[in-house]
């Protein structure tokens, strides 16, 4: 069985490619697989009869109780025969149905075959989750099949509808299955039915499962998707909507009925819905003018009928139910194929336009009649035998005094009357000669085309007398139900019993109804349709869309302040409420260690508050800076000169970057919003601040253990050979963090550059061309890529006649120059660089370190830029910032990696000390190499910021002002 399923899957995959070669004949190939499955199932008959169901199991995901287990008992056997047999015939039918030029043929054939395989798997699956998998797979394949005519809006909507309705049902079912499997501890269908657990949870689970089954089988209130699905090509309707998919729900209910028919609510619910569906479907079928729709509503009606019978829960009803299932598959698939033929040959399925087709196409008409009489349940047909059994069972129950039995009898009788009427209408509509309608002239077709429906119809005819034998086979299923004290067997003729009289009455009634069709028609137009689920579905979707829009419009404002407010409010709400619940408060709070802290703290708070009212960007930047310098002061008060120094440098560089950026922004901050919002935001901000303060008090007050930092100085000196704890922590103990932060710096610098240069930054080193350079500094400049033209800015003197303190000072307009600044920078630059190198190497034992050192060097460069402009920067640092960043990162990451090759952990440092004459005692730790990496990365970053936010923006401004000027002169 599993091999067969594999074959289905594999062949489906190659079909599209194959179709390109062989065209429509590909259906011969696809027919082979279901045919093989059919034959294989037939070969299993002895085992099934002997009540030793063949099983196959491949364990799959045991944690989820999901195994590939299959089991062919009587019910599965019957359905397997139906789905594979009808499947084979429909495939053969496709050969003639589709033109070779049909669009998407390969896709269709592949999906169709896959569907057939899934259906086969579905009816033989024993694991509930496997069943669900296949169940949903049929949904998806049917989505693709219904939407085959992709260009038509109607097919797309119908496909969507079928998908949504059946998936919705399926998911509800899944929840039920999970409940059931969880409660019983088994996922085997057969075991579940054997165990037949009870209880509220089981009842809920069963109800959920039923929702899935009912939606699949198009039972009210889910019936609407089926008629819409008629947008599909006819072979799809013949297979999915007659023999296969829609029967899946019925199959599942039949499968569960032996164990769960006694579940509270099962009988009244299913019987009610079944009868109702049967009546609604039949009633609607009577008014259809499209033959296919007529059959579709007929199918809805028949599904209701089937549901009524298989859910009834008595032994005879069960037997009747499976017989009816077989009969229905045979005649309904045949009839759909007949409609397809009519459509093909005449070009219409509208019964008001068809006239005299019976005479023109006698064989077709014969096949249709054979199938239709079975549908109507005329004596000596398969449909009749099944219906007799149904009525006998229901009458037995009714005569035993069961109210449900009476409802069933009456419902089925009325429903059958309608069935007879619409069967007659179908035959009349398709084949009869009608007054005032032109006789159709059908195309002639190959007899082959007719073979599939003919075989099905004739099978129904031939099987009818054999139903006695078939009945004994099917009893394998029905005997799972408790005996009712009498044995009913399927027979072609039971004599003139009560069931026959009911049957006969429905026949006459139905014919009468057909006779009076005009009156019926006018009556129907006056009776409003009771359940218009289609409308419900559509308005449901519209409501969903509307709700979705409203919810999304409320939450997704596209406003950053709104998002931040929400985040902070969540924080205030949640952290605030935990604080409110908190009962562990510290006994005493020490507000400050020294008055200096108090003073600095006050300044910081005032600056932060002033920031809220800042009107200009520059003002805001400075106030942020004040807070930052205040932080540095606090570090200093805590006895951390390193951190304080670094913080001061960071603040300075940040301030410079800010100022550089601000040149491109409007001076004033954006317009203030209304006062209410400002109040809200201020309130939120203040609450967050207060909250953090209180949390800090609580958290610090709760400490009982010693912090790990207590041991750090000792560790740093003993193992790290450094007296500067901060530095050893940064480059060694927590060097891994530093390495990470280096990559942050690299990424940030790269990002700033990428935003300003957009394309590539490597080609933008501004330099003064060598010929104009002066002195030794320029001698080492490589030929520049950006040659500055000889046109100088207005007011700049010819460089040859001037000497300047700074190289590129001559590129600046005089009003932008400051001689004093140039002089100071010129004097300070080299000492600063030397200082930075000192800080770099001293850092291990004294305040300093790569980070601070890099910042100092960066500040020196910033000074050169501020005093001398972008050309000065190019001269001072004629390197590609990206490359400096890269080299720095390589050094740092390399220091981390090299120890790995020496068999140590990453970042392990090694310490050397030696005494060299003249230089004296030297100590060197490999972590210093790491620190050099840090140094380079920091310089690279500052350089990148200066290049992009400084130099490049200068250039862009000059360009735009030049273009502005040239524009004005023209």
């Amino acid at each position, binding site marked *: 069985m599993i091999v067969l399923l594999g074959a289905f899957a594999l062949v489906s995959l190659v079909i599209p490619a194959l179709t390109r070669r062989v065209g429509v004949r590909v259906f011969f190939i696809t027919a082979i697989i279901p045919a093989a499955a059919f034959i294989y199932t037939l070969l299993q008959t002895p085992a099934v009869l002997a009540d030793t169901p063949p099983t196959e199991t491949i364990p799959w995901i045991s944690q989820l*109780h999901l195994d590939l287990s299959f089991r062919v008992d009587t019910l599965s056997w019957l359905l397997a025969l139906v789905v594979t047999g009808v499947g084979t015939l429909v495939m053969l039918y496709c050969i003639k149905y589709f033109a070779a030029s049909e669009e998407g043929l390969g896709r269709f054939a592949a999906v169709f075959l896959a569907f057939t395989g899934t259906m086969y798997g579905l009816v033989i699956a024993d694991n509930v989750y496997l069943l669900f998998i296949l169940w949903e*797979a049929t949904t998806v394949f049917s989505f693709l099949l219904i939407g085959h005519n992709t260009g038509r809006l109607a097919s797309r909507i119908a496909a969507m509808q079928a998908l949504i309705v059946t998936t919705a049902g399926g998911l509800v079912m899944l929840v039920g299955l999970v409940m059931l499997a969880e409660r019983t501890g088994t996922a085997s269908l057969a075991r579940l039915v054997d165990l037949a657990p009870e209880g509220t949870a089981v009842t809920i689970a069963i109800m959920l499962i039923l929702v899935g089954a009912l939606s699949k089988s198009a039972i009210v209130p889910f019936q609407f998707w089926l008629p819409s699905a008629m947008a599909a090509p006819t072979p799809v309707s013949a297979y999915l909507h007659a023999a296969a998919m829609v029967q899946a729900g019925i199959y599942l209910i039949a499968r569960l009925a032996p164990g769960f028919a006694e579940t509270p609510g099962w009988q009244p619910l299913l019987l009610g819905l079944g009868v109702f569906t049967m009546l609604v479907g039949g009633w609607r079928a009577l008014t259809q003018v499209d033959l296919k729709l007529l059959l579709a509503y007929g199918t809805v009606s028949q599904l209701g009928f089937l549901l009524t019978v298989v859910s009834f829960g008595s032994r005879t009803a069960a037997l009747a139910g499976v017989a009816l299932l077989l009969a229905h598959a045979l005649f309904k698939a045949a009839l759909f194929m007949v409609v397809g033929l009519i459509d093909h040959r005449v070009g219409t399925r509208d019964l008001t336009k068809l006239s005299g087709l019976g005479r023109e196409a006698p064989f077709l008409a014969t096949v249709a009649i054979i199938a239709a009489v079975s549908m109507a349940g005329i004596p000596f047909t398969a449909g009749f035998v099944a219906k007799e059994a149904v009525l006998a069972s229901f009458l037995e129950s009714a005569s035993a005094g069961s109210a449900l039995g009476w409802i069933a009898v009456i419902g089925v009788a009325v429903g059958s009357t309608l069935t007879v009427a619409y069967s007659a209408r179908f035959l009349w509509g398709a084949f009869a000669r009608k007054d005032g309608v032109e006789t159709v002239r059908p195309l002639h077709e190959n007899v082959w085309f007719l073979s599939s429906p003919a075989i099905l119809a004739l099978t129904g005819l031939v099987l009818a007398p054999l139903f006695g034998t078939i009945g004994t086979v099917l009893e394998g299923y029905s005997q799972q139900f408790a005996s009712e004290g009498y044995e009913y067997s399927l027979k072609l003729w039971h004599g003139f019993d009560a069931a026959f009289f009911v049957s006969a009455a429905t026949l006459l009634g139905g014919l009468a109804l057909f006779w009076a069709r005009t009156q019926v028609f006018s009556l129907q137009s006056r009776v409003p349709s009771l359940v218009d689920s289609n409308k419900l579905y559509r308005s449901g979707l519209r409501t969903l869309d509307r709700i979705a829009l409203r919810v999304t419009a409320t939450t997704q404002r596209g406003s950053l302040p709104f998002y931040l407010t929400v985040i902070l409010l969540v924080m205030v709400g949640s952290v605030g409420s935990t604080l409110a619940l908190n009962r562990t408060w510290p006994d005493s709070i020490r507000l400050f260690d020294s008055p200096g802290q108090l003073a600095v703290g006050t300044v910081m708070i005032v600056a932060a508050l002033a920031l809220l009212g800042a009107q200009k960007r520059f003002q805001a930047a400075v106030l942020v800076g004040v807070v930052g310098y205040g932080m540095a002061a606090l570090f200093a008060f805590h006895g951390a000169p390193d951190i304080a120094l670094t913080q001061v440098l960071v603040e300075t560089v940040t301030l410079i970057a800010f100022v550089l950026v601000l040149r491109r922004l409007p001076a004033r901050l954006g317009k203030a919003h209304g006062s209410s919002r400002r109040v809200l935001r201020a309130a939120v901000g203040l609450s967050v601040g207060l909250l953090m303060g209180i949390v800090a008090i609580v958290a610090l007050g709760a*400490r009982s253990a010693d912090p790990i930092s207590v041991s750090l100085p000792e560790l740093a000196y003993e193992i790290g050979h450094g007296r500067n704890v901060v530095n050893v922590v940064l480059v060694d103990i927590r060097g891994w963090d530093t390495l990470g932060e280096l990559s942050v710096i690299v990424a940030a610098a790269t990002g700033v550059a990428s935003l300003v240069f957009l394309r590539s930054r490597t080609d933008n080193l501004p330099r003064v061309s060598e010929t104009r350079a002066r002195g030794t500094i320029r001698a080492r400049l490589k030929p520049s890529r950006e040659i500055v033209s000889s046109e100088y800015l207005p007011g700049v003197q010819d460089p040859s006649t001037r000497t300047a303190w700074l190289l590129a000072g001559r590129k600046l307009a005089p009003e932008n120059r400051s001689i004093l600044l140039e002089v100071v920078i010129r004097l300070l630059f080299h000492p600063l660089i030397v200082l930075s190198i000192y800080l770099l190497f001293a850092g291990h034992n004294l305040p300093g370190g790569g980070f601070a050192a890099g910042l100092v060097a960066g500040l020196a460069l910033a000074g050169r830029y501020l005093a001398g402009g972008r050309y000065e920067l190019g001269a001072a640092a004629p390197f590609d910032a990206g490359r400096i960043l890269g080299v*720095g990162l390589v050094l740092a990451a390399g220091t981390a*990696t090299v120890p790995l090759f020496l068999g140590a952990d990453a970042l392990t440092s090694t310490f050397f000390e030696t005494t060299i004459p003249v230089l004296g005692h030297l100590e060197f730790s490999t972590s210093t190499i790491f620190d050099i990496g840090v140094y380079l990365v920091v310089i690279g970053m500052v350089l990148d910021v200066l290049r992009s936010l400084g130099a490049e923006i200068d250039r862009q401004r000059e360009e735009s002002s030049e273009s502005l000027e040239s524009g004005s002169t023209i």
Partner: protein
Amino acid sequence: MSALTTLVVLLPLLGAAAALTQANRPRVQTLIAVSVLSAVLLIGAALLVAVNTNGAIAVEVGGWPAPYGIVLVVDRLSALMIVVSAAVLLAVLVFSVGQGLADGDRETPVSIYYPTYLILATGVFNAFVAGDLFNLYVSFEILLVASYVLITVGGTKPRIRAGTVYIVVSLVSSAIFLAAIAMIYGATGTVNIAQLTVRLAELPADIQLILHVMLLIGFGIKAAVFPLSFWLPDSYPMAPAPVTAVFAGLLTKVGVYAIIRTEMIIFPDGQLNTVLLIVAALTMVIGILGAVAQSDIKRLLSFTLISHIGYMLFGIGIDTAAGLAAATFYIVHHITVQTTLFLATGLVERQGGTTGINKLGGMLKTSPLIAVLFFIPLLNLGGIPPFSGFLGKLALFEAGANNGSVLAWVLIGCGAAVSLLTLYALARAWSMIFWRDAEEVADYENPLAMRAETGSSPVVESVRTTPRIMVGATVAMVTVSIALTVFATPLFDLSANAGENINGPAYYVNTVFPGGLE
């Protein structure tokens, strides 16, 4: 093995550095990036095997003993995440190589793209191995700063705007996370996770709760948990397709991973399980409603991303080994499928020139392969069996049913409904893009009028050819996503074992402190 652990982080970092020095040689950069990520993928696989057979690994970086130095921890969950992330990063990289070659690097200026991408990878990998809360923060910073650069690549106006939202919100989340770390250090005097779990347990429950909530808010923003998720759909979709793919696939999952560590190791008492479950339900439902209302595929997918974070929280909130196993499996599934969908969207965008659902049509005829490449992950995300999305949901439902509380059943119900809505939103989009005729597009009644589209851009007829590399990378991802079903058994075994490992901190503490703590 410990060397391999550090290499997972060091290799991409060295690669980034090397790529930076080769700014003028895009081919060399490409080679570096591809080989580095391939190497990490192999190392990750080796780690996974090693950890699965021999138990978790703890590495003391620089030889500094825990808790003083930084410790890296690889257990099954970490190793699994590394493997999946490396695979996804590699596939997306290859995809963007294809796109870059074809577009003349319009979307992805190579000289910064590859180094930044590798830095992003560094951050992601480091987050998965961090055994130190502050180092975890550093990991987040690495990946976030790299993502700031990637999201604004090209510097177009919409990207800058999206980038602003993204960066500001991320900074706020980082600040909250940092504050939480400070408070936790304040209360316990350590940031080593294994030691934290011991010391935090000694604190009064009410103080634990305060710290717990703060930490979760920080991670919740990164993981895009409702109502901290609004920023995501306004930022992710604007980035270039491969960038969005990797963001959507990975970044939020790093947040979810951090939440798992928080709930299972740092605060293992399950104080907030109920809250997590409620938030999970809201995230699922509100998120998917957003998806239903979208008319742009990228935005639509961003909302499904948020929505499905809810499923993972569901598994975490159940707080059993089965729930964790389900969440773990779901994370793996979701990383794969969400990335695949965004890559497929990238193909659609390339082929059709837009991601507006209302402007696309008739693509089944022009690009049948893309239709398939979109359809399979669509079903997968919608939880249609037999794909991994279904298996993940089934595992979650079973774990929920096993828990049996009313709230768990509500979550199961929400899970089923959200699954349906996901399918609805995606299938509708798919049928419009691929099935609808191109001619129909022009006068189509627009059911999704969420945002009036400015201007009447003409219907896009597919003219461009799509590079094989891009399609190939997408095919590879679809294959991986299908492989998750085929190899679901070992994956579930792994997830189940991971679930048992991380359910309760004892295993973790013993890994870091084999000789016991203090």
